[in-house]
């Protein structure tokens, strides 16, 4: 899981704007439904939780099930009233957490 998430959001916005945020995390999202060539079930390994915070306050989060496609993509909105930092986290079934941050200037 050395892969880096991809983020797309504006660098600048006006106060009160609702901006669009796109995120993509490279990940196999192994469903736990597949079998290997010996007929053994391949254990489930997915990103089960995503969170987005702005200046420490929750904006959006998602609990994900194995029905989310590989390389989980999430698009959502945020209403920005002040400049600050978005923090995104992805939690793996194995307990590891990957996070990423992006700043936005609100004028």
């Amino acid at each position, binding site marked *: 899981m050395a892969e880096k998430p991809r983020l797309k959001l504006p660098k600048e916005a006006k106060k009160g704007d*609702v*901006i669009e945020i796109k995120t*993509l995390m*490279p990940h196999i999202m192994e*469903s736990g*439904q*597949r*079998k290997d060539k010996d007929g053994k079930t391949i254990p489930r390994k997915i990103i089960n939780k995503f969170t987005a915070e*702005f200046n420490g*306050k*929750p*904006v*959006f*989060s*998602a*609990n*994900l*099930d*194995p*029905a*989310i*496609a*590989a*390389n*989980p*993509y*999430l*698009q*959502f*909105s*945020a*209403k920005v009233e002040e400049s600050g930092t978005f923090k995104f986290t992805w939690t793996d079934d194995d307990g590891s957490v990957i996070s990423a941050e992006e700043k936005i200037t609100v004028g």
Partner: protein
Amino acid sequence: MRQLSRRAALAFGAGGAALTIVGWDRPAFAAAKEAADEIAKFTGGKTAAKAKVSIELPEIAENGNTVPLAVSIDAPMTAENYVSEVLVVAEGNPNPGVATFHFSPMSGKAEASTRIRLATTQNIVVVAKTSKGEFFTGQKLVKVTIGGCGG
């Protein structure tokens, strides 16, 4: 009866390089009741009004391994009254759960998009909960062409 329910789908990963074979080993329709149970758990047994929920999905998904889904709830997003949670379930998958989205007044809009896996032709059901404890629902049928991506 097991072999009847085996589905194999070929899918190309985002990079186009990864080729994956998916085998579902439970009857697809088994999840319909589980989906209803999951919704009942989410609403606490309350009836959800068939309103305000828009679901964007292709009518026909050739590749069930990555189907674009967009959900939007036509409701206010103020500190006093906002859409707090949105449950997405798939009636025909081996497990009905797809995702639960959590919104806040800072979300601005109760809208989210992702890409989902669908084992077979089925209904996708979305249930939204507001901060006032109201529930709204909508559903959409997606036809899934198994192995339809040149496999």
